[in-house]
């Protein structure tokens, strides 16, 4: 069935490079050879029958394999899924066919021979073929059955009446019907938008293509291989896995070609933070309702929440938790001081492939050190960039400082050990933080409360340190979520050692983002006068933000995430928010060995 297809049907007649077979063979690269069935002298060798504990291959996945092998493997082998406008339209078209009762299909020998019978949503499976399919409609007439698959969109104008992936899918349905003992001589496709029916002829060639595709898909998944992305294909534009697959970015490493446009975000949803002590979050209809005593309730549409962040004594009802789990929206649990405690839900793809590769990388000393060198270099370069861009101090001090930081960044390339890297990082951090007050406006610099001498933590001793600590914690959480969604384990680091309660991988990946995202958000809030000295309370040697000030600072950070930036490797414009998601996905690709290095975010 097509209702949960990851992509739309190919746009009618608008896919360039379509040959007479209706397939864009050049797109599929080496991973999808044309089936040799029609040629002489070759024997098609199929995968052995499915073992008992193996999953049967759904007809829908074979359709996807023929469309793009990578799509089928990402979805079926790696448990990745994303929807888009086309998949939503597909569901809508499908629902329209689901009215009324669905009569069951009688046994093959009890088929009425003089009338047409229709049934819906029939599940068929065959261990022998290793295949399964959900059939939209089956018509029975005169002892023969015809599977009819419903598609959104219009009938494409190609010689065969429909594109190969759809014909292959119907063919698998027909084979399963035959396996169940029915006489099935043809299949059909129903195009909902143009209300046209297309007959699918079950030629030997089509059957061989379908069985060959099923076999190739099963063997590829069993071998743990991920086929390469398509190259500049129109298919990717319509593919809902585009934000996950990153075809242009992965190809960039192979060919150096520039990516076209940034992959779209999977959803426009944004985080919802609840940090007012005593607040209560409940679910009502299609919204989350936040109740704070003495304030009007706030309702936020569930669809618009990408992540629920709860800091401190805030409660969440079980029905709300269930709904968030169902929607795969993570709940991040944090202490009042925004110390990341952990998450519920939002576990990312239903597969451990990426995590397994991540552990292997962490165990591989040379690879680990190579990554760490580039990481520390990126962090030092980015602190230098922040100083260079926002300098308000003496001109004479600036040059030598920037030179020194550039030198330290260059030295990372020759660091032999992680300890040596730590030394370089420490020296750069000391220089950078000593210079930080030179980035304050005169108005801020004149306030004794905002004096800043050095970075200190746990507890932060002064307002500027309190702001930095808070934003670093929030940044850690942003990355922890992006990392989990990309299938990685936030607790296992590459540069940072593991320690209980420490999301080491998030701490690794945020290093280059600390100056350009977190520090710049704090600078923005201070220099714009969004925070005043009486927004802070000092107690027991530590300094903290009052709830209202925390709200303002987090809002400034979230605004910073919405700002656009240029990706230094790919050259396109994206929001920082989207950039972080892309970087997490790229890191997963790097970990799996699909791309040779992780391109750190180092803006100019």
């Amino acid at each position: 069935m097509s209702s949960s297809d990851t992509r739309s049907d190919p746009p009618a007649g608008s896919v360039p490079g379509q040959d007479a077979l209706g397939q864009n063979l050049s797109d599929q690269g080496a991973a999808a050879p044309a089936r040799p069935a029609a040629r002489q002298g070759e024997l098609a060798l199929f995968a052995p029958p499915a073992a008992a504990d193996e999953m049967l291959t759904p007809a829908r996945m074979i359709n996807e394999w023929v469309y793009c092998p990578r799509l089928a493997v990402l979805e079926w082998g790696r448990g990745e899924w994303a929807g888009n406008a086309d998949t939503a339209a597909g569901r809508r078209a499908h629902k329209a066919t689901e009215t009324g009762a669905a009569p069951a299909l009688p046994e093959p020998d009890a088929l009425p021979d003089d009338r047409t019978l229709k049934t819906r949503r029939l599940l068929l499976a065959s261990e022998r073929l290793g295949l399964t399919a959900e059939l939209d409609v089956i018509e029975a007439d005169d002892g023969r059955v015809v599977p009819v698959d419903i598609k959104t969109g219009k009938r494409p104008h190609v010689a065969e009446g429909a594109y190969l992936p759809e014909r292959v899918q119907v063919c698998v349905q027909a084979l399963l019907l035959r396996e169940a003992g029915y006489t099935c001589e043809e299949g059909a496709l129903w195009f909902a938008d143009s209300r046209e029916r297309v007959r699918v002829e079950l030629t030997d060639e089509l059957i061989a293509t379908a069985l060959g595709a099923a076999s190739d898909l099963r063997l590829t998944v069993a071998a743990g291989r991920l086929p390469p992305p398509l190259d500049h294909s129109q298919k990717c534009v319509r593919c809902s896995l585009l934000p996950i697959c990153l075809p242009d970015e992965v190809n960039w490493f192979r060919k150096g070609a520039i990516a076209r446009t940034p992959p779209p975000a999977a959803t426009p949803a944004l985080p919802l933070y609840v940090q007012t002590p005593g607040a209560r979050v409940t679910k009502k209809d299609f919204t989350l309702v936040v109740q704070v005593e003495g304030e009007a309730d706030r309702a936020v549409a569930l669809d618009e929440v990408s992540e629920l962040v709860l800091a401190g004594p805030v409660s969440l009802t079980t029905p709300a938790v269930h709904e968030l789990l169902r929607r795969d929206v993570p709940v991040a649990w944090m202490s009042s001081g925004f110390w990341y405690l952990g998450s519920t839900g939002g576990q990312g793809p239903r597969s451990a492939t990426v995590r397994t590769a991540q552990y292997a990388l962490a165990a591989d000393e040379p690879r680990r050190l190579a990554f760490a060198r580039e990481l520390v270099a990126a962090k030092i370069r980015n602190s230098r960039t922040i100083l260079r861009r926002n300098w308000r101090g003496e001109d004479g001090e600036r040059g030598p400082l920037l030179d020194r930081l550039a030198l330290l960044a260059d030295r990372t390339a020759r660091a032999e050990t992680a300890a040596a890297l730590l030394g370089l990082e420490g020296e750069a951090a000391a220089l950078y933080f000593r210079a930080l007050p030179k980035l304050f406006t005169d108005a801020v610099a004149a306030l004794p409360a905002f004096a800043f001498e050095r970075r200190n933590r746990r507890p932060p001793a002064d307002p500027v340190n309190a702001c930095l600590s808070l934003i670093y914690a929030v940044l850690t959480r942003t990355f922890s979520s992006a990392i989990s969604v990309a299938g990685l384990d936030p607790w296992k680091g590459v540069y940072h050692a593991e320690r209980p309660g420490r999301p080491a991988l998030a701490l690794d990946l945020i290093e280059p983002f600390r100056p350009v995202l977190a520090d710049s958000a704090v600078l923005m809030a201070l220099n714009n006068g969004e925070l005043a000295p009486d927004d802070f309370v000092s107690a027991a040697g530590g300094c903290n933000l009052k709830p209202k000030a925390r709200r303002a600072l987090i809002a400034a950070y979230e605004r910073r995430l919405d700002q656009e930036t240029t990706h230094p490797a790919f050259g396109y414009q994206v929001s920082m928010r989207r950039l972080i998601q892309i970087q997490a996905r790229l890191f997963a690709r790097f970990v799996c060995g699909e791309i040779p290095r992780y391109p750190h975010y180092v803006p100019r």
Partner: protein
Amino acid sequence: MARRSNAEHAYVVAYDISDPKRWRRVFKTMKGYGRWLQLSVFHCRLDGGRRAEMASALEDLIDRDADHVIILDLGPAEDVEFAVESLGKSFQPIERRAVVI
């Protein structure tokens, strides 16, 4: 140019529902998609996927013979200045911002 499926558009959704029970259900459903503007009018900001989901959810609720829903597309939410004249209360386009409570 073809509409990027993930780009958000702004919409006005207005409905006439003849049965109070169904009206209530439509009202509740619409709260999941937009901001309540007036009695049977919502203002929404949706990408292509949510736009299709909303239409599908409404289709399930209404009686096709007795009720009527219209979905007016005001154009891309990010790049277009809506020419809206609002008398009395003010009209605010929906901005996509993280909510911090």
